[in-house]
């Protein structure tokens, strides 16, 4: 039947002409399929110009389909029978020339729906293609690629110990492309998930170049980023990863002047960071904040019953010592209960 997509086990090569006729393909689809099949034939042509033109046609069709949210990716469906053919072509070509890279990029996109699971073909082909300009292939592709990067990183980590981090440079290069893409499109969760999976959370603190003169994590989105980071923290298994995550959140809050939230993270970190003790971190925050914010932070520290002392200002030290509590409480309680007239 015409609408049957071959399963990964089957190697159906072509919709036969009769099947195509039996199918209810619209005239546009019909034209599309013919165009694609022609390109597939031409791509195997020894003439490089012909080959190049055919490849570009395929790329154009696929890109138009995947980069828009509203179009149905029909080329992906119709190219399914030709996946293996294209793979064979690629294997035969010179991988370093631009045409080879372009074909690798194309194969990476096709692998999204056509490769067998666990073979990580998207990643395999993407690495042979170009890492840049992921935008043109669409959001779904970037997500699928990010998924494989994360899975590959974990697999490598399980299989090797020690010198593992240096051998993951190729993956990290991809992360550097994917994360800015996600952050630009407000997909904070995806970006942070990938960073967590590849243990590169500190990159949020600023390794990424500005785009349109705007930093990736700016005053508009730092709250969401930090909130998601900290919530992920409840599920982190590794204490070092958790520490890195919290340090990153602390850095972001501090940079954007949200000192009370930064203090909260500092309290969570406590003395877990050997390089910066809790008291030193507090002192750092108190130095940067204005007087009113210092008082507010003092109230938070008082609630937490910390032993931080701020000798520079007695009034603030008094607040940290929770000396204001009784005054507020006794003063309020009687009025409050009177209003309730419950007792």
């Amino acid at each position, binding site marked *: 039947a015409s609408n049957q997509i071959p399963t990964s086990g089957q190697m159906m090569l072509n919709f036969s002409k009769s099947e195509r006729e039996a199918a209810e393909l619209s005239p546009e689809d019909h034209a599309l399929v013919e165009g694609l099949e022609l390109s597939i034939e031409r791509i195997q042509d020894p003439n490089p110009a012909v080959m190049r033109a055919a490849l570009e046609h395929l790329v154009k069709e696929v890109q138009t389909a995947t980069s828009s949210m509203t179009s149905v990716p029909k080329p992906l469906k119709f190219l399914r029978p030709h996946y293996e053919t294209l793979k064979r072509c690629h294997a035969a070509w010179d991988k370093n020339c631009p045409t080879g890279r372009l074909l690798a990029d194309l194969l990476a996109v096709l692998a999204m729906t056509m490769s067998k699971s666990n073979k990580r073909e998207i990643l395999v082909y993407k690495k042979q293609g170009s890492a840049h300009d992921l935008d043109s292939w669409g959001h779904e592709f970037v997500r699928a690629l990010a998924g494989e990067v994360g899975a590959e990183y974990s697999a490598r980590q399980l299989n090797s110990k020690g010198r593992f981090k240096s051998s993951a440079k190729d993956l990290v290069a991809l992360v550097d492309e994917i994360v800015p893409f996600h952050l630009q499109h*407000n997909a*904070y*969760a995806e970006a942070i998930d990938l960073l967590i999976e590849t243990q590169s959370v500190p990159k949020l603190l600023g390794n990424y170049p500005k785009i349109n003169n705007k930093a990736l994590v700016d005053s508009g989105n730092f709250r969401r980023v930090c*909130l*998601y980071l*900290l*919530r992920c923290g*409840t*599920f982190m*298994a590794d*204490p070092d990863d958790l520490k890195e995550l919290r340090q990153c959140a602390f850095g972001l809050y501090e940079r954007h002047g*949200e000192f*009370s*939230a930064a203090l*909260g993270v500092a*309290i*969570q970190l*406590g*003395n*877990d960071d050997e390089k910066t003790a809790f008291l030193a971190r507090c002192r750092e925050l108190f130095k940067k904040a204005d007087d*009113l*914010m210092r*008082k*507010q932070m003092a*109230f*938070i520290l*008082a*609630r*937490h*019953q*910390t*032993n931080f002392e701020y000798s520079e200002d007695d009034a603030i030290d*008094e*607040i*940290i*010592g*929770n*000396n*204001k*509590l*009784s005054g*507020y*409480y*006794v*003063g*309020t*309680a*009687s009025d*409050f*209960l*009177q209003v309730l007239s419950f*007792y």
Partner: protein
Amino acid sequence: MDPKSPEDIYKSHLGDSAFSRASNISARQVDSARANLAATFVNAFVNAGFCKDLLMTEDGNAWLYKNKEYGMLAAAASLGMIMMWNVEEGLTTIDKFLYSNEEYVKAGACLAIGIVSSSVRHESDPPIALLPEHVESSSPIMRTAAIVALGIAYAGSARDDVLDALTPVFTSSDVMGDVALATLSLGQIYVGTCKSEVASLIAQKLMEASDASLEMPESKFLGLGLGLLFFGRGERGDAMLEALKTIEHPISLCASVTLETCAFAATGDVLKIQKMLHLCAEHRLEPVANTTPALMEATVLPKTPKATHQSAAVIGIALVATGEEMGAEMTLRTFDHLLHYGEPAVRQAVPLALALLRISYPDYGIVDQMSRLTHDADAQVALNAIVGLGLIGAGTNNSRIAGLLRMLAEHARDPSSLFVVRLAQGLLHLGKGLLSISPFHADRSLVCKPAMGSILTFLYCCLDLKHTILDKHHYLMYNLASAMVPRFLFTVDVELNLLPVSVRVGQAVETVGQAGRPKTITGFQTHTTPVLLGVDDRAELASDEVLAKSHVLEGVVIVEPRRSEVPSG
């Protein structure tokens, strides 16, 4: 408002019958010493922090002399809780009793000094000035009071001068009672710091103590003190765990469980929870004729007769899971299984563990479950469930729990049960409903360690009610002072004076990962501050004219007027 007397608490909302009124009177006459003791504690809890009450602040001597010995100690100490956080006036009030001829009154006054200073760091610092001399007193009761008071006053402070004051207890004393309480105090003072000097002091005592002293009920506090030292520090407790394995006495197992669960407290670490569940699943097999030796080997408990390590494991499960909502809910279901299939030691700890997961949070389901447990066949489970009811409703005035407790009081089987019911009633009406003992704050993202430590101390006491709270050591309940905190949201202006501001208070909603600007609260009502917040409540400013300085509206929040936006170039 007028201070409340214990009778007001016992009888509030009494709907009903002559029967209930009559039975109350007769129950009171049966065991008046116990009844007076209960009244002391209820009075302390209900008027905590108000600096005014009907029994002690006006003419304390009258009430004081209605009690004897430890009852007098509790009564004198209750003054500390009533004057809590007000160090100056508190000291003036307590002073009269500090030089009393009655040893118990003097000891109570020492304890009061510690309680009045809990959570507060006052410049005059009375506890360190007045208490260390009594740590080495010849009177055992003075020593006890001073040791416990230092722990309450300096919880979380990690002060070396307090360590110096308490070290003599370890170096020159062999009295397990003193050593255990000193360990607890040090654990509270250095909570979560992993301080190695303290760790070695405690470990050494554990290793040197005779088997007889380790059999005493207070010995479990050694494990708890050690656990508190490593509270929330995870793997840093591993070295000490190894050291504990070298101790041959069964207490090492209990202490290890305590240490491990404290180290991973509030982390939600599933591996630790599973490990504790395995411990709870062990059964004591009666020798059955057909059992193969291999089967017996696999499931028989180690020779500890009381299996306290299993109780500690149950509380430990709650301790590790708490603070993370999903994990806590899963653990609640696990406790159902433990109730069905567990050994008595496991079942007895379940109500306490449930209470730990829902401190000051009387959610309908948990109240139901706890209420069922109060009618359990095992008397220990029932008593712990009554305590549990008090804990989950602590400071909320929850009317449902109040009704349940009144019923339990009417039908109390014995004076001990009635006493525990009264304590629970006192906890329920903590601070007349204005206080909470939840250690969580900042939108439940932070855990106050001394507060959690004090709750754990109370729970460990309840594991052995007969020898602690129902015996002479009821004063250990005053440890809860470190966890008490007003439920108010206070808003203050830039001069730090209270400023009424309009806020919306409703149930907190999780908005992580959601697009746009979703509402963070649901089912809200608009109030003017100061306003009471429950454990799952959240507040947001309803007024456009002010900006809050804090990212979270809890406790004391400074608000400043919103400056009108001046267009900049």
